[in-house]
Each structure stands twice: as C-alpha cells, then as structure tokens.
C-alpha cells in the first residue's frame, strides 16, 4: 500500500477511455462498478466535449456480486452494440472487475457480435493511464490494421494524439500543415479522430509520424515491424527540434519542397535585447518524459536558461530522462510522488518551474513562477484559442507561455531603479489591485516588528540572526528575489559558522553567489 493524495496518472482504463473517446465509431464496454463513470467528467468538463464518451459501464453493485456479473457484462455489451452500432468494440475490466475475474474478452467473444471485439488486458494494480492508452491503441491497430499497398503519393500517419491530451488538438493541426507544405499527405491521424475503418487502412502510409511516444510507441513499433513503416523519432517541440523533425521527414519521404518559416518568431524574440535577462535563469523541469525532454532542450539551447533539474513521473521514460539529465549534468528525478518533487524544488530553489498542474501549485506555495508544459492539466490548459506546442507556431507559444510568469528585462530594470519608491515596493501592495492592499505603516517608518532575541546566544545550532542594518538592506532588494537572497545569505552564514548576519555578510554572500 502507498498513501497518496495526488496522482499524476489515472488508472489504465482511463487511458483506454482516452483512446476510445478520441476515436469515432468505436465503443468501449467497461466492466466496472457503479461510480467509475466519474471519469466521464474528465472529458465533458476538462476537455469540454459536447458528447458523452463512447463508454458503457456495467455498473455492477454489491447485490450483483453473488450472482451473475458475467451475465450483466454480456447484457451491457449487447445493449451497447444495439444502441450505438459501432464499427468495433473494445472490452475490458476496471480495477474492481479485475478482481472478480469475469474475463470480458472471452465473454464478448462468445456473443458473436457482427463487429470486431478487441479484448484489453490492463493490469490496474501495476500500470497506469499512459500505459492503458498505449496498450489500447496498440491492440486496436494489431486487430484492425491490414496489410495494404502503399499510396501512390508519399503519405504518412500521425500517431499518438488522444482525448485529454495536452494540446493534442492543435499539435495535430500544426504538424498536418507542416507535412502538407512538405508535400506529404496525411493518411490517417490516430487514435484522435480516426474510425476503426481508418485504422484498417493505416498500412497504406509510407511512414509514421509519432507525436506522443507515451500513447503511440507500441503501435508505431508494431507498424514498423509489420508494415515496413519507419517512424519519426524527433518530437517537434521547439525551433531546433522542429528543424530536426523536418530533416527526418525529408529523409523518410524524399521531399525537397521549400518551407515557409517566416511565422517562426521565437528565435528572434529570444535573441532580442529584452530577453538578455533570461540568461542563466535556473529552471526545474518536470512532467511526462516526452515533454520534459523537449522542454529541457528548448530551455537550454533556445531560451538560454540554466536547467537546474529535470524529472518525469512516468517510469516508462526513466531511461531516456536519466540519460538526458546526465548530459545536462543534473540529477534526474523519477517519481510519481509530488511530495518528493516538492522537496527537490525546495532544495534547488529554481527561479522558474516548467511542470504540470501540480508543479504550478507547488510553485504557488513556494513563490516560484511556473508554466505548464505537460499533462496532467486542468481545464484552463484546454484553451479555446489555437495554442500548439509543436512546430513553428508551437515554438512561438512556448516562448510566450514560459516568459510571461517571469519579470521581463525592462520591467526588472525599472523595479531595480525604483525599488525605494514610495508606491512601488511590496509593502505598498500590488498596484493593479486598486487599493494598496497591505498598507505601509502610517508614518513611513519601519513597520512594527516583533521583538527579536538579540542576546547573540544561539538557541538552536544553525540558526542565524539578522542584524538590523542587514535586515533593512535586505528589504531594499526587490521582493521577487528577496526570498532567494535571504536563503543564500543564511546558508552562506551557516556554512561559515556565523551566528549573525551583518551588512557585510549580506554583500559577501551576494558576491559569493554572483554569476
């Protein structure tokens, strides 16, 4: 047993739902107790879908357990077929049904339904959501894709996008466009938007574009083996990766069509002088393996950040993430325990976090700016506006998204210039809130303080005392770096066994940590 409050991934049958909901003409019959329908609202609320996920739950109850849950399953399967007339059905068990061992696959097979029935084995007590999606899509491809002659024109499939995928909708649009410019036709996009008959003709394509290894790698490998379709290995997130991706696609397709990259603004934006202040900002990167690897490269090579740490929550990607961490000279954090992530962030004290919804909240708690780069995400990260992560427009989106939480150069300069200004300091409260929230003390003098013990005796070893002059000087440091200055100075003092921090200590520490 493991005590958990937050989980980065749902159970594997939610991954299967992501595949089923992304597709059309496919129905999922899930052997599950009453209550597991909660997962519907991930799709109808977070992704704001205007239809119910194509999932029928058997919703067995306690009174059914003694009797015929298998019969219940068959009934649900028949009802689902009669009502929805899908082209194919996938069947499986949720965690509870896994324990009662009804074998949905075998049961459905005996029913003689006139459409393909694909059984899923999703071990709920070992694996998680991404595995569920990857395995489900693989099984669908394995059952439905038939060998076929290749199309006359060069074509490819786009593999991996699912329902509830972080920016999958717009990534697909962006990459489809890019391929179109290269003169490459998209044969099938799957699972998102595909029908079972589309899956049936996947083998027509000359190669596959694998956008999300988390949810499509097994299927891509299967197609490579079975249909002689190579697949792309570069994930086109960031300007550099997009260029590499284009080169890879050109090599696979022989396309030499010119590409218009005038929309790609990210490189110039990052080169412009206002971005100079981004140099060496220390970032911590956490999320799913794919997005983390891509983000690390963008952060270092295209934004000029210093990558202070990277990690991922999906163990399937532990190896490449570890390798990348080594290349970056940092420690990789492979964990699905957010408390561990929080601990590492606290220890690293980055100036920015690139992470998931959870890291956004950790950042909020620690006062560190954060941008979201990976699922799991909340409703605000399924935006109405076009916002891909991939391709040239994706790079533009990344630049804006990552920079906005930071204070930009000009702004930082102004804050330094006016840091003593009467209405432009943190005690005056944020100016955009109209009323100056936490008012400065009336006479303008130092705010009342609780009396401090100035005896100089150390109560706890390791505790250091700020002398008044140093503390006053500390307050002149802009609020957004003050926390870091305080911590740096204190650790500097502690390392040298100092009990007190004077003005000199403050500046010695500043010099020590300068870069």
């Amino acid at each position: 047993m493991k005590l958990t409050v937050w989980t980065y991934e749902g159970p594997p049958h939610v991954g299967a739902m992501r595949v089923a909901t992304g597709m059309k003409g496919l129905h999922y019959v899930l052997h599950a107790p009453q209550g597991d329908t909660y997962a519907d609202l991930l799709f109808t609320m977070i992704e704001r879908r205007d239809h119910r996920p194509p999932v029928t739950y058997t919703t067995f109850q306690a009174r059914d357990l003694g009797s015929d849950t298998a019969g219940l399953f068959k009934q649900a399967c028949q009802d689902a077929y009669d009502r929805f007339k899908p082209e194919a059905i996938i069947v499986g068990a949720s965690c509870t049904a896994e324990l009662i061992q009804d074998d949905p696959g075998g049961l459905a097979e005996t029913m003689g339904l006139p459409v393909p029935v694909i059984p899923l084995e999703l071990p709920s007590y070992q694996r998680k959501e991404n595995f569920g999606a990857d395995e489900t899509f693989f099984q669908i491809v394995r059952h439905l894709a038939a060998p076929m002659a290749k199309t006359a024109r060069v074509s490819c499939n786009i593999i991996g996008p699912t329902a509830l995928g972080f920016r999958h909708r717009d990534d697909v649009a962006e990459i489809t466009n890019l391929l179109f410019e290269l003169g490459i036709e998209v044969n099938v996009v799957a699972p998102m938007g595909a029908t079972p008959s589309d899956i049936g003709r996947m083998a027509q394509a000359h190669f596959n574009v694998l956008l999300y290894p988390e949810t499509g790698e097994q299927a891509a490998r299967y197609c490579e083996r079975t249909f002689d379709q190579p697949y792309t290995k570069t994930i086109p997130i960031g300007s550099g990766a997009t260029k590499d991706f284009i080169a890879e696609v050109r090599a696979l397709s022989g396309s030499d069509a010119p590409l218009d990259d005038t929309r790609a603004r990210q490189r110039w934006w990052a080169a412009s002088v206002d971005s100079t202040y981004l140099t060496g900002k220390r970032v911590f990167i956490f999320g799913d393996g794919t997005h983390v690897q891509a983000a690390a490269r963008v952060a270092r090579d295209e934004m000029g950040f210093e990558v202070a740490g990277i990690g991922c929550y999906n163990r399937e990607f532990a190896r490449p993430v570890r390798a990348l961490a080594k290349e970056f000279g940092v420690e990789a954090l492979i964990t699905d325990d957010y408390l561990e992530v929080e601990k590492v962030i606290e220890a690293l004290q980055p100036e920015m976090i690139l992470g998931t919804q959870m890291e956004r909240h950790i950042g909020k708690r620690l006062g560190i700016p954060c941008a979201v780069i990976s699922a799991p995400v909340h409703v605000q990260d399924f935006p109405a506006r076009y916002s891909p992560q991939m391709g040239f427009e994706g790079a533009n989106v990344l630049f804006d998204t990552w920079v906005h939480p930071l204070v930009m150069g000009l702004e930082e300069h102004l804050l330094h210039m006016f840091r003593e200004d009467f209405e432009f300091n943190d005690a005056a409260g944020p100016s955009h809130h109209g009323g100056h929230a936490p008012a400065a003390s009336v006479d303008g003098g130092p705010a009342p303080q609780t009396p401090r013990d100035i005896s100089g005796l150390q109560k706890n070893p390791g505790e250091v005392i700020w002398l008044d002059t140093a503390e006053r000087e500390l307050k002149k440091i802009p609020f957004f770096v003050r926390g870091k200055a305080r911590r740096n100075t204190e650790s500097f003092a502690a390392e040298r066994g100092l009990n007190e921090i004077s003005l000199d200590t403050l500046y010695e520490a500043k010099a020590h940590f300068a870069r």
Partner: protein
Amino acid sequence: MNDQSPPPPSLGCRDQPVLKQRGQREVFCGLTGIIWLHRKIQDAFFLVVGSRTCAHLLQSAAGVMIFAEPRFGTAILEESDLAGLNDAHAELDREVERLLARRPDIRQLFLVGSCPSEVIKLDLSRAAERLTQQFAPKVRVLEYSGSGIETTFTQGEDACLASMVPVLPETDARELLVVGALPDVVEDQMLSLLDDLGIGPVRVLPARNIDAEMGVGANTVYALTQPFLSDTHAALTRRGARHIPAPFPLGEEGTTAWLAAVAAEFGVDAETFAHVTDAPRRRAQQAVSQAADVLHDKTIFFFPDSQLEIPLARFLTRECGMTALEVGSPYIHDALHGPDLDLLPAGPQISEGQDVDLQLDRCRAAQPDLTVCGLGLANPLEAEGLSTKWAIELVFTPVHFYEQAGDLAALFARPLRRKTKLGIAAA
C-alpha cells in the same frame, strides 16, 4: 399552528407508482462524500483503502481543494497486497502509523472501504478495532464503506454518520439531535432559530470535532436535515432515539414545515412560532420570488444523483411555479422521502435507480426547460440544446433554511438567465 402547516395537497406523489430501473448508472460513488465531510469534521482524516481509480476519483472531484493539505488520502492497493491478506493488514498499520505521526492533530480516523477493498474482503472493521486500541485514547478509528458497489454519492455521508452512532455515549437526557452535515453558516442559522423557539439542548451530528460529540438514548429525538441518511436513521432508531418526520428544510415552505414538526415535538406555542419565524419567512418568500421569476411555468427533469431530488422538486414546483416531468432519485426511502412526496403535486414520473440510456431517451422526448444532472451529462445535453443545472453544486453550496431559499432558487434560474443573455433562447 394550523396556519404554519401547508394545506394537505389534493394529491401527493407518495402512493404513485415508482419507475424502478436497473442498468448503467451515471452516478458518483460514496467516496465523494469525503470531500465535504472532511471540511465539516475538523479533526478527522479519511483514509480510503482502494485503488488508483479511487485516488483519481477523489482528485477529480476535489478539484483544486487537493492542494490545501486536505485531510483525506488513499492507501493504494498494490499487487503485493492482493496476494495475501495478512500482508495487507500489516501494510495498512504501517501507513496509518506514518500518517498519524505526520498529522498529530488528527483525533478521528475513518478507514473508508472501496470497491476493491470490499471485493477482496479486506476486514476494515477489524483493522479499525485494532488501530483504535493501538492509538487510544488520542485517536478513534472508525470504518465505513464508500464503495460504488454499495453506496451512491451522498450515501457516503450516511455510511460515515451511521458508523459514528454506535460509539456515541449513552444518555437519558431529552435532547434534540439534528443530523446531516450542513455548511457552518447554515448550521448556525438553524441553531439560532431553534434557540429562539426555546428548543434545547440541541446537538448536531456530525459534530465539528470529537470533543463536541453528543450522547444518544431513549429520550433523544432527532430530525434529519438531509434526505440521504437512511442508515443513520436506522442506527439511531436502534439506539432507542425517535425520529421526527418532516419535509426537508429547503425553501420557505420546507423550512417552516421542518421547524413546525420540531416545534410540535417540543410543545412550542403558535404565538412563539409565529414570532420567531414570521420575519425570516417573509424574507425567504421575497427572495425566492425575486430569484425565481424566470422559473415560473418552466418544466424540469431530474436525473438521479444525491437523493435531494424529491425535496428540490417539491420546492421548485410549489414555491417557484415549475412543473416537474420526471424526478429521479438513486434511492427512495418512504420514512425519509414520504413527507416531501406528500407535498409534491401529482404528475411527475417518480423514478428510482437508473438505466441512463433509457432515461436520456425519456429526457430528450420530454424536452424539459431545465435538466438537473451530473457533470458527465451536462455539457452533452447542453450541446443538444437542453439547459442543464449540474447537481453536485447543490451538495456543496449552502441551500438549506430560510436565508438560503433565494440562493437556492437562483441556482436553478441562473442557467436559464444565461441562455437568454447569450441569445440562445430557452424554450
């Protein structure tokens, strides 16, 4: 007191045939109750023993609340736990020890059963007894099931409260016990109304902390503020306490009828009753009429969710002028829902349980002006052109008693107002 009791309706719904269906159910399981119960019982921790699905459900239902160091969590069963049961108990003990060491403020720990733990027959009651002995007297460990196979949504609160009843101290005092977790502001209003009526002492279940818990015995009378408390009702009856049947305190009429039933039990005279309730009644009527002007002559359809559907339908039909087409409830208990069914004008189809696809067919055929349903159905129905009010909000928002009557009507009026504002004409 005659003028306080609503006139007996010519035809109620109590004896109407109930449509009982079984099939796919689009409802939450009882684990969801934890989300509001842990806010109410301030010294309790709710430890679900379940799967990753359970943790994912709590996370999805709790939304952003998950980040405020909540007092609930899931001990996720792993493969090794399924292999041998003895091991599972040792594992549970270890997790509980770690938890209690980290959260010394916890005085009550609820081990909450889930579908997986019920199916593998992990004996949580034995675990609760063992852990109670181990951590006595500081921490009391109780056990209940919030599994989907046994409980639907709000029944989780019922199971939780019912688990507390057997361990409440015995008392001979004649006390009023008010049962059902209410938002603090509502609870305070209720206590002050009862105090003004001269009724006391009044205890509430659940209490805000373990030290404020009440006794129960043969002289205890209790009133329910929530319609989903049938097991708690049974458990209190077993302890000898007596139920005061009443409609639920939703809307002006419901609140008055509820207070009147309690007042009658305590022999409050008509003059006092009128003196205490006249002003808030007037306020409530006025607020309801202002908020509900768009609801008049509109039709409404309830999908089953929380068991609040019947009293809500009673409020919306009698006080807001709506017409109910179907009132679906996951579970109907005559002793609890009867008084509201008596008041609900005849006409609507009353349904218990669910086959969601058949019910959706009925809903589409009926084309109600407003549909009350869960979040899995709301957007899909909106996309089909139906206006919806998502039901879960009715459990989290303060809606009971006089001062909230206007807010309650406004919750239903808002989706219709919005449709008008956006130029999507509601029927």
